[in-house]
C-alpha cells in the first residue's frame, strides 16, 4: 500500500517565512497550555523521581537533593516492602490487562457488527443501550458493582438459582488460576516455582491469576468500555465500501470468511486504536480501586497507579511514587511499540503469492 512519493525541493520565499511566523503565533496558545499542564508537570515528576523531596515546599527548593536512581533501585531491586508491593501491583495489573484488553476488543467488535446490520430492528435503541455504561461515571458504576457483587448481592442470588454458591467477590483474595489448578489437584507450588522470585513475588504467585475480587473489576471494565470501542468499530464499519464485500460474495465467500478475510483486515487501523487505548486505559486503572477496594483484599487489587498515589500521598514517599509512575510509563510505551510491530502492515508473503498464482484453493 505504501506509495512512494518523491517530494520536490520547495523554495522558501519571504512570504512563506511570514506564514511560518504567524503559524507559530497561532499555535502558541495551545503550546503554552500544553507546556503548562503537561510538559512542566511531567518534567517536575521526573525530577521528583530522582530526588529526595519529602513533600514540603517546592521540589526545586535548595534543600532537595539528587539521589540518582535510588528510588528506582528500591522499587526494582530493593528487596523490601516497596519492591514486593510494586511486584504485586504489576502482577495484578498484568492479569487485568491480559484479560480485559482481548475481551473488551472482541466484545466491542461483536457488538459493533451486530448493531451495524441493516436488518436489525431497533438499532438505535441497542446502540444507545450498549454505549450507556460508557457515559456513566466510573465511580457510580463501581458503587453499583460493589452492591451487585456483594456476598448477598444480585449476582450471587442469580448463581444460587443454578445451584452455585457464589464467592465473596470483593473479599475473596484467592487467585482464579490457583483455584482452577486446585480443582485438578495442584494446590501446592512445584519447588521451582516456589523458590524463584521476581520483584519479591514467587513465580507461583505470579501465576495466581487475577483474584476473584480483581475478576469482578475485569468484568466491570469490559462492561463499561466495550460501548466506547463499539462506537469506534461501528464508525469504521460504516466507512467500509460495499463493493469489496460484493466482490467477495460473487467469489462465493461465506459470511464467516467475509468477516475474517475481508472486514477484519480493513479494520486494522481501528483495531490498533482500540488496542492502544485499551492498553493505556487498563494499565492506568485507578478510580475503581480508589473507590472500590483500596487495593484489598490482601493487596490483590493493588495497581501501580494506585500504589503510586498511596506511596506519595499516604506514605510521603514522593520520589518512590513518581518512580512508579515512570516505570508504568515505560511499560505502556514498550507494549504499545510491540503492538505496533505486531499489527504493522506486512507485504504479502512469498508463500501466499505462490498460493494465488498457482490458483490453489484453501
Amino acid at each position, binding site marked *: 500500500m505504501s506509495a512512494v512519493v518523491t517530494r520536490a525541493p520547495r523554495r522558501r520565499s519571504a512570504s512563506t517565512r511570514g506564514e511560518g511566523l504567524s503559524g*507559530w503565533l497561532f499555535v502558541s496558545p495551545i*503550546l503554552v497550555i500544553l507546556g503548562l499542564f503537561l510538559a512542566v508537570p511531567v518534567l517536575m515528576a521526573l525530577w521528583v523521581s530522582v530526588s529526595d523531596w*519529602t513533600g514540603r*515546599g517546592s*521540589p*526545586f527548593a535548595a534543600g532537595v537533593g539528587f539521589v540518582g536512581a535510588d528510588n528506582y533501585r528500591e522499587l526494582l531491586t530493593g528487596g523490601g516492602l516497596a519492591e514486593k508491593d510494586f511486584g504485586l501491583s504489576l502482577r495484578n495489573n498484568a492479569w487485568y490487562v491480559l484479560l480485559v484488553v482481548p475481551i473488551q476488543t472482541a466484545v466491542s467488535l461483536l457488538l459493533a457488527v451486530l448493531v451495524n446490520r441493516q436488518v436489525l430492528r431497533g438499532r438505535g435503541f441497542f446502540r444507545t443501550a450498549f454505549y450507556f455504561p460508557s457515559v456513566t461515571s466510573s465511580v457510580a458504576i463501581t458503587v453499583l458493582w460493589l452492591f451487585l457483587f456483594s456476598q448477598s448481592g444480585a449476582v450471587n442470588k442469580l448463581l444460587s438459582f443454578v445451584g452455585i454458591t457464589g464467592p465473596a467477590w470483593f473479599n475473596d483474595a484467592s487467585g482464579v488460576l490457583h483455584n482452577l489448578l486446585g480443582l485438578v489437584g495442584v494446590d501446592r507450588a512445584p519447588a521451582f516455582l516456589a523458590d524463584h522470585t521476581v520483584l519479591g513475588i514467587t513465580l507461583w504467585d505470579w501465576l495466581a491469576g487475577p483474584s476473584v475480587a480483581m475478576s469482578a473489576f475485569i468484568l466491570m471494565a469490559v462492561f463499561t468500555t466495550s460501548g466506547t470501542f463499539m462506537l469506534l468499530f461501528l464508525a469504521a464499519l460504516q466507512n467500509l465500501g460495499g463493493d469489496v464485500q460484493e466482490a467477495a460474495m460473487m467469489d462465493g465467500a461465506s459470511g464467516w470468511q467475509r468477516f475474517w478475510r475481508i472486514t477484519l483486515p480493513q479494520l486494522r487501523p481501528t483495531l490498533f486504536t482500540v488496542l492502544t487505548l485499551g492498553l493505556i486505559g487498563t494499565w492506568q486503572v485507578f478510580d475503581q480501586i480508589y473507590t472500590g477496594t483500596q*487495593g484489598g483484599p*490482601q493487596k490483590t487489587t493493588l495497581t501501580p497507579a494506585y500504589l503510586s498515589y498511596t506511596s506519595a500521598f499516604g506514605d*510521603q514517599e514522593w520520589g518512590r511514587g513518581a518512580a512508579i509512575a515512570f516505570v508504568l510509563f515505560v511499560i505502556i510505551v514498550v507494549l504499545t511499540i510491540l503492538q505496533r510491530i505486531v499489527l504493522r502492515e506486512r507485504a504479502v508473503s512469498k508463500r501466499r503469492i505462490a498460493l494465488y498464482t498457482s490458483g490453489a484453493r484453501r
Partner: protein
Amino acid sequence: MQRRTTRLAAAAALTTISVLGLTACGGSGFSDTSGGGASDGALTSSDDALSVLIGSSGDAETKAVTDAVASWSSDSGTDAEVSVASDLPQQLSQGFASGKPADVFYVSTDTLAGFAGNGSLLPYGDQLSNADDFFPTLVQSFTVDDQFYCAPKDFSTLGLIINTDMWAEAGLTDADVPTDWDGLTEVAAKLTTADHVGLAFSPEYARVGAFMAQAGGSVTNDDGTEATLDSSENVEALTYVQELLTSGDAAFSSDLGAGWGGEAFGTGKAAMTIEGNWISGALTNDYPDVSYQVAELPAGPGGQGTLQFTNCWGIAADSPNQEAAVALVEQLTSTDQQLAFADAFGVMPSIQSAADQWKTDNPDQAAFLDSADFAQGVPNQDGSAAVISDFNSQLSGLKDGDPEAILESAQANFDAILK
C-alpha cells in the same frame, strides 16, 4: 536544512524559556520552606485568618467543630474558617507542598511521622498550658524524636460489644461476661447458632492487635525503637485468634460479607464484636433496634489489653499565625469543649480532668474509658502505615495461615523502616 535548524533552535529556545518561566512562577509560588520560626521556638503572629481543615465523621462533628471555632473566633477577634476535607491526607499533602497549608487540621497517628519528618508540622505540644492534663499514652502517640508535636484531639479504645438479646437467648447472664480468653471462647461457642456466629471482627491489626496486647505482646518496644512483632506472646495471640476462627464460633467480618465488625454486629450476623466508641453512633443511626452493652475486653495471659486510636490537632509550620492557632487548639482541647464534643459525636476526651464527668454522662460506655488504663497506642513510626497495611493483608489469611510466618514477615518489614 540550515533554515530548519534555525527553526528547531528557535522552537527549542521558546520552549526552554516558557518552561523556565513557568518553573520560576512555580518557584515563587512556593513560599520559603524554612518555616515560621519553629526552630527558634518563637511562634509567628499576624492578623491572618485561620483556616481549619478537618476530616469529619458526619454532620454532627462538622457542626460541633464549626460552632466551637466560631465561638472562639468571636471571643478572640481572629477570623477562622472550618472546611471539611474529603480526603484529608491528600489535601494536607497538597497544602504542605504548595507552602500554603491550612493552619489547624486533624493529623492521624500513622501520618504524623511523615509530616513531622519533612518539617510540615509545628511541634507545639509542650507550649500548651494544659499539656500535663493529656493521657500520657496519647502524648506518647504524638511524640516523635522526643518532641511532643500536637495535642490529642480525643481518643477511643476497643471494647467488647455484646448483643444483649442474643446473650439472653443463649442463657447467659451478666456474670458470664468473659474476663479471660477461656471465658471468651466459651461464650462465643454458646452464642453461635445457625444464624450467627458468636464473635466477629475485622481482619486487621487494629482489632487483632488487641489480642496481641492481651498476650503481653506489642508491635515495638516501649520506646518504639525496636520491632517486637515476632515475639512468642504475639505468636500465642495469633494462634488463639486462629483457634477461634477455625472453631467456627468466631469469624472475620469480611467472611460474613460485612465491611466491618459493626456491620456484622448490627445486621445480626454476630452476637459480639470488637469495636471502639464510634460503634455507638453507627448503631444508633443504622441499626437502632439492636440492644447492646459494652464490656472491657477479656484479659489474656499477659493481663488486660486493648488498642487506642487518636487524632491530634496539627498546626502547620508554615502557618503565618501560629500564636492564634495554638490559642485555638488550647480552647478546643479544654475540658468543657471536649465534653461538648463528646456529647455531640461520641468521642472520649483526651484529658484526664474530663474523664469523670464523661463517665457520669455516658455510663453505658464507661468500659471504653476504663480501658484507657491498659490501652496500647498504635505504631506511629515513619513508614509504619505501609507495614501495618501489609500485616493486615496477611492477617486476613490467618485462618489457614501460619501465625509465625505472618509475624516474621511483618517483623522483617518493620525492622526495615526502623533502620
